[in-house]
């Protein structure tokens, strides 16, 4: 049995932050959970899916974040506690509905967990979800440790139900993906029947229709709720203060940054000079609490990730109450004491403290960083950011690159988000020249494809993953078709949301809970939309290249090409080699004129290694996934493959 459904309340267990968040939701009796995969949030929905049967929960991977929020809202409207999960930039996608949901209000407790990724460890942006709480006017909680993660989510449902508003609980990578001790609470038994009531008064969202009109009334109502919630926050146990009664310096912090602050203060032995106000309820601010601490402090330092959210809110508050709090010096991101981009860590806090307080501290020897860098480049084996051995994307981009190069009109690829984003780099032969949000490559390509009237002759190609196609790829394709844009959309269909761990999507015959589902055929969808569709197996290099050349040279209007091949790491494929591959060293041309190490210098599948002493390529049998593609690229026919007999 999973610890997530352990009925022994009071027991302490080691949980990952995301598991603690899940446990909190289970303890709150969550019934409906929806989300879209995105690191570091994905394992929340995955863990819920695992216990869906046991805890009688409906769990889904939705087509995108906006739809996931809508699906979860339906649960709340029908009287079931519901949860929605996404990564930071997912909130941008969901934000339109979020704005309206804040206005209409919710019924049964509804919680949104956005997981931010400071330092963009697994992202192509450093987005901040906290501002959405202020922007759409809903309460925001930020757990500072694993225990709080569990307790806060549970409490968030109660708060949501009490005030009939969505509550945001924001996590960050270092909380979601680290582990700590959590004491478990009770798991409730509940069999609430879902029923959507709408017979009540038009103005009462609890019994009547759930709408946003009349807007001024609902807007005022939401603001009133926030004032009341702020009162509740004044006494929340999630806001804690440690330090002297009148600190020289007050650190105001939240989330994982509170741990860095505690560590820094303790390392510098400043416990009797510096106080730490850790806020768990960060919007709306518990104003009285914050003011009283500022009043007693000599100066204030904000430690937070990513944007100066607390800093700005507290400064506005301090200015409004300057007679009470007095004129204080404020340090943070705005005056540059704390870096304004990238992850926070204890070193940054130590640096800030030593510069403000004037104490000396050298945690690391001065030349540590330099030595570490030298060691990294000389001692550790070089590992480039690349596709896995046997990855279909390498084969796809090989053909895309070569076709565009042959065409010789400076064609280019507009990309978006997925493993294939790496095609910006050598891994994908530097093919991608624009990369932004999900589906944006195709939207940008749709625009480029209309610039022929201004003399643009460059072929325009976009790439989009299968999951991305459903998420945000269809509208730009429809746009390109309707507006007669000359572009080719290549759908890299590797049968799953590979980058985040093979979550299913609507193109597959399985749902989040592992049940059989109806699959939507991408090719049929594109055809029905009005695009010409060609399908190819990217492992068939010659065939794919021929089809690509034909459409790049002769195609007009919006066209779709589907390159379909299962991801090398997919559970279906993993560990199974299709081919046994070897290099006939007598045929290998190596660095001679006629090859110059095409396989290990350019193609660079990690399964191929250069034997410098022997002057030939060879296969690393352990790493090689047996896709057999390198056989087709070798100009000397030196790479031999034989089908593995099953």
């Amino acid at each position, binding site marked *: 049995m999973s610890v997530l459904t352990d009925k022994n309340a009071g027991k302490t267990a080691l949980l990952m932050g995301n598991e603690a968040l899940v446990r909190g939701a289970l303890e709150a009796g969550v019934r409906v959970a929806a989300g879209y995969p995105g690191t570091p949030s994905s394992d929340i929905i995955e863990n819920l899916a695992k216990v869906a049967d046991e805890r009688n929960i409906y769990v889904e991977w939705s087509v995108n974040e906006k739809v996931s929020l809508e699906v979860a809202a339906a649960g709340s409207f029908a009287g079931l506690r519901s949860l929605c999960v996404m990564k930071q930039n997912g909130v941008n996608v969901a934000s339109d509905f979020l704005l309206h949901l804040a206005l209409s209000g919710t019924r049964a407790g509804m919680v949104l967990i956005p997981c931010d990724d400071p330092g963009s460890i697994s992202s192509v942006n450093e987005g901040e979800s906290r501002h959405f709480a202020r922007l759409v006017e809903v309460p925001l909680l930020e757990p500072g440790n694993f225990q709080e993660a569990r307790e806060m989510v549970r409490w968030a449902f109660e708060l949501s139900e009490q005030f009939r508003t969505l509550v945001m609980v924001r996590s960050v990578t270092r909380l979601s993906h680290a582990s700590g001790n959590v004491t478990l609470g009770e798991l409730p038994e509940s069999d609430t029947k879902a029923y959507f009531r709408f017979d009540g008064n038009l103005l009462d969202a609890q019994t009547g229709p759930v709408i946003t009109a009349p807007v001024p009334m609902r807007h005022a109502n939401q603001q009133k709720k926030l004032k009341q919630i702020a009162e509740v926050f004044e006494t929340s146990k999630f806001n804690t203060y440690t330090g002297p009664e009148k600190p020289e310096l007050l650190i105001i912090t939240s989330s994982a940054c509170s741990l860095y602050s505690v560590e820094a203060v303790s390392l510098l032995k400043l416990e009797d000079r510096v106080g730490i106000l850790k806020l768990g309820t960060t919007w709306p601010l518990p104003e009285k609490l914050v003011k009283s601490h500022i009043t007693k402090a000599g100066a204030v330092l904000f430690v937070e990730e990513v944007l100066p959210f607390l800093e700005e809110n507290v400064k506005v508050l301090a200015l409004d109450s300057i007679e009470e709090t007095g004129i204080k010096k404020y340090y943070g991101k705005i005056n540059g004491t704390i870096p304004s981009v990238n992850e926070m860590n204890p070193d940054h806090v130590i640096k800030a403290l030593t510069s403000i307080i004037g104490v000396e501290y050298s945690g690391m020897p001065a030349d540590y960083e330099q030595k570490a860098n030298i060691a990294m480049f000389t001692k550790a084996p070089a590992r480039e950011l690349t596709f896995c051995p046997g990855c279909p994307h390498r084969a796809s981009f090989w053909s895309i690159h070569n076709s565009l*190069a*042959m065409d*010789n009109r400076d064609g280019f690829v507009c990309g978006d988000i997925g493993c294939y984003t790496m095609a910006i780099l050598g891994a994908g032969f530097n093919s991608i020249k624009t990369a932004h949000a999900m589906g944006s490559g195709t939207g940008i390509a749709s625009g480029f494809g209309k610039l022929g009237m201004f003399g643009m002759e460059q072929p325009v190609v976009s790439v989009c993953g299968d999951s991305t196609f459903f998420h945000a790829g269809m509208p730009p394709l429809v746009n390109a078709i309707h507006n007669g844009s000359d572009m080719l959309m290549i759908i890299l269909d590797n049968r799953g949301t590979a980058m985040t761990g093979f979550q299913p999507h609507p193109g597959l015959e399985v749902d989040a809970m592992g049940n059989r589902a109806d699959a939507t055929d991408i090719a049929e969808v594109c055809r029905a939309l009005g695009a010409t569709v060609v399908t190819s197996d990217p492992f068939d290099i010659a065939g794919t290249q021929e089809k690509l050349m034909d459409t790049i040279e002769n195609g007009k209007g919006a066209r779709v090409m589907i390159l379909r091949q299962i991801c090398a790491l997919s559970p279906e494929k993993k560990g199974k080699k299709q081919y046994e591959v070897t290099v006939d060293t007598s045929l290998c041309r190596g660095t001679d004129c006629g*090859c*110059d190490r*095409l396989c290990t210098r350019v193609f660079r599948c990690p399964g191929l290694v250069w034997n410098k002493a022997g002057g030939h390529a060879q296969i690393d049998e352990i790493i090689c996934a047996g896709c057999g593609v390198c056989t087709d690229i070798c100009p000397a026919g030196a790479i031999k493959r034989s089908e593995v007999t099953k």
Partner: protein
Amino acid sequence: MQLAGSKELVSGVIKNDLCIGCGACVSLCPYFKSHNGKTVMLFQCSRDKGRCFAYCPRVEVDLDGISQYIYGRPYGTEAMGNYITIRSSRAGAAAGLKTFQTAGTVSSLMMFALGKGVIDSAVVTARDGVKGKPVVVTDASKIPGYAATGYSAAPVASGFNEAMNAGYKKIGIVGTPCQVNAVAQIRTNPMETENFTDPSGMVIGLFCTWALDTGAFLKILRDKTDIASIKRYDIPPPPAGVMKVQSGSGTVDIPLTEIRGAIPGSCSYCHDMTAEFADISVGVFEGREKLNILITRTRRGEELVQAAISAGFLEAETLGDKDISELAAASMNKKKRALARLALENKINSAEGISVLRMNGEILKQLETM
């Protein structure tokens, strides 16, 4: 000859509008490809010396070295290069040709050479609309299918590389002077490969004053005719001043002044009108409908022509002095224009960097003042 690699080839030739798309650098390795008459490099190669550079007829062409190899003497001042006999000719009845460009001399000779085993393979040019593509033929009866010429510059020399890759040892090839010069360089073994033997069996050169860039040519044709159904196109003798293009939608006349817009810049650096390093060179006998001019330059070339005449594959007569001097004048004209341009742009015998041509400075001076 100064050897370099693909980097210098790309920067010095391809990016410099000197590439004629001859294909000599293609089919050697995975990097250079020819597409629609243009030569492109797919990925960078890190070698500092390579066959791509060594074979290219637009960079570091050592005229004396090649002449020494083929004729056993340095490059001279003759307008049409070294030769044995100049004749007028046409295909003989034994060849049974139905279509050809001028008078079928080239196709007859190729058929004959392949049939007699003088060559073990023949590199000729297949046409797809206006695009040309080399094919390696080993069956003599297939040769007539590739008769008649396209005016687009085609990667014919890559066909020679392909025939070498396939292991042929007596390769026959028909090409324009640039393509013939590429093949001549291949034959001199510039990379000094061990156990090298000259893989050519017979090189037939076509006279050429200019070719057309496939892409630019297509652009001109696009709104004048149905490109997909183009069957044939000819330039009738002066004073017509037009190109006649026959397609499924009928025949259109396109003014030569317009067609000239599609001549690649590279042709203006070409000093060779008569394919001076071929075994046999063939062209149009201007003003004499249905006759070729046929120049034999090497012993094996002359032997082939004589045998073809005996076998009824060729009909030929020695060309009169007046016609020879007219041809020489045209040939010298092209040579001097190109040499002047090369000299002006410091692309011949340049002391620094890479040069298009290298030759004896004295001979160059004499040519310039002739």
